[in-house]
C-alpha cells in the first residue's frame, strides 16, 4: 500500500515535470493534434450516412433520329438509392413486339454530400434488347460505356448527381456524369440524414 502510494507519487511528479518541460509541452501538442486528427478520420470513415432516394422518371424518346417520322418511345428510368445499395432500371417501350429493359444493381461507392453526387458500383443484372435497339446505344451514351461494356454481370461505375430538389412538387433533376444527360424525375421518397 505504502509502496503503491510512493510509486504513484513518483509518477505524478515525473509526469508533472515532463508536462512542464519544453519537450513535454511539445509532445502534448503533438498528441492532442494526433488525437483530433485520428478522431476526425475515424468519424469520417466509420460513420455511415443514411441515404434513401427513389426517383421515377419518364421521357419521350426520339432515339432513332431527330427528324425521323417514327413515333416516340416511352423511356422510363427508376433510380433507387437505399443506404449503401443502389439500383438503376431502364425501360423502353416503342410499341414493338419486345420491351427493352436494362437492370443494374450494386452499391454506393462514394457520396459527395456537398454536390449531392453518388458514385455507384453497379453490376448488370438483366438485359433485353430488340433488333435495332434504341435503348442499347442510348445507355452506352448515358452511362459512358464502350460497346462491350454493356453485358450481363459487367461491372459499371456510374456517377449521378441530384440537382434542383423541389420538395413542394416532389421533383428533382438527375444529371449523369460525365455524359451530361439530364432527367427531370418525380421523387417517390427521400430521406437524407446522418
Amino acid at each position, binding site marked *: 500500500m505504502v509502496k503503491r502510494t510512493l510509486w504513484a507519487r513518483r509518477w505524478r511528479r515525473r509526469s508533472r515535470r515532463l508536462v512542464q518541460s519544453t519537450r513535454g509541452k511539445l509532445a502534448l501538442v503533438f498528441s492532442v493534434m494526433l488525437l483530433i486528427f485520428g478522431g476526425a478520420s475515424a468519424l469520417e470513415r466509420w460513420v455511415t450516412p443514411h441515404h434513401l432516394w427513389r426517383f421515377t422518371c419518364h421521357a419521350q424518346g426520339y432515339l432513332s433520329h*431527330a427528324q425521323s417520322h417514327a413515333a416516340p418511345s416511352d423511356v422510363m428510368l427508376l433510380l433507387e438509392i437505399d443506404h449503401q445499395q443502389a439500383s438503376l432500371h431502364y425501360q423502353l417501350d416503342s410499341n414493338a413486339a419486345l420491351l427493352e429493359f436494362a437492370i443494374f444493381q450494386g452499391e454506393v461507392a462514394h457520396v459527395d454530400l456537398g454536390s449531392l453526387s453518388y458514385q455507384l458500383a453497379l453490376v448488370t443484372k438483366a438485359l433485353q434488347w430488340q433488333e435495332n435497339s*434504341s435503348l442499347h*446505344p442510348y445507355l452506352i451514351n448515358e452511362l459512358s460505356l464502350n460497346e462491350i461494356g454493356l453485358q450481363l454481370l459487367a461491372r459499371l461505375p456510374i456517377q449521378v448527381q441530384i440537382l434542383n430538389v423541389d420538395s413542394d412538387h416532389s421533383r428533382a433533376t438527375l444529371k449523369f456524369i460525365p455524359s451530361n444527360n439530364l432527367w427531370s424525375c418525380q421523387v417517390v421518397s427521400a430521406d437524407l440524414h446522418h
Partner: protein
Amino acid sequence: MQIGCCWFDSERRLLVDQAKSTQWHLNDNEYWVLAQLVQHRGQVVPLDMLEAVVISGEIAHQLSHAELVSIIYHIIDYLCSSHSNLIEYIPEQGVILYPMTQVKHPKILDLPTRLLSLGQYGVIIGALLVLLFFLWSHITPPMFAKADVLRQVITPQGKVIQLSVFDEQSLQDAILHANCLSTQLRLCHDVHWDAISAAMSTDRHYVSLLLTQSNKAVWRFKNVKVRVEDMHSPFITQQWLHKVDICG
C-alpha cells in the same frame, strides 16, 4: 510599478525580481534615483536632478557623479537580461527609463535563446507538410451545375420562357442550339412550357430536354430524349417543336 521583470514597491522601498524571486531593499539614494526615473518614465531625467536627493522627512543631500553612475548601473544589472535596456544612461545628459522593453524578437532557431532544436523544428515542419498534403489530396474540386447559356425568350404573346442550355464540350454548340431554339420559340403561336432546359451529351449524339410548366396550379413536367446525328447543325424546326409538343 512594473519595470521589466521587476516590481518596484515604492512604499516599502523594494525592488523585487519576480523571475528569480529576490528582493532588493533600496537605500535612500537608490530609492530616490529609481523613484525619479519611475516618476518621469519615458523622459530623460537630468543628472543634477538625480544627484540632488530630496526625500520627504529627511535632509536633502547631494550625490557625487560616481555614486550616481554606480547606482544606475547597479539597477541596470539587477534587471533581468532581457530588460536590461529599459534604463539607459546618457553621459552628461541624464538617465531615461523606457516605458517598454525594446525587444529584439529572437529567432526560433537562434542561439542562445533558441526555442526549439533543429530536429524538433524539422519534425513540426514535416508533420505540417504531411498534414497539408493529406488534406490537399482529399479536396475535390466543386461540381457546378450551371447552365452554359441562360436566357429568357419572350414569345409574341408576351410569355417569358426560361431557356437553359448545358454543354460541357462546346460553348459554340450550346450557343448555336440556344439561338436556334430561341428563334423557333419566338415563331411559335403558343408555347406550352415556362422553362426549357437542354443538355447536350458529351458523346454528341443525344440531347436531353427538360420541360416545365409552372403557371398552373398543378405543375407539369416532361422529358424528351432526342438522338442527333450532327450536334454542330441545328435540328430544331417549327415542325419538330410541334412534334415534341413544345409548341402548339
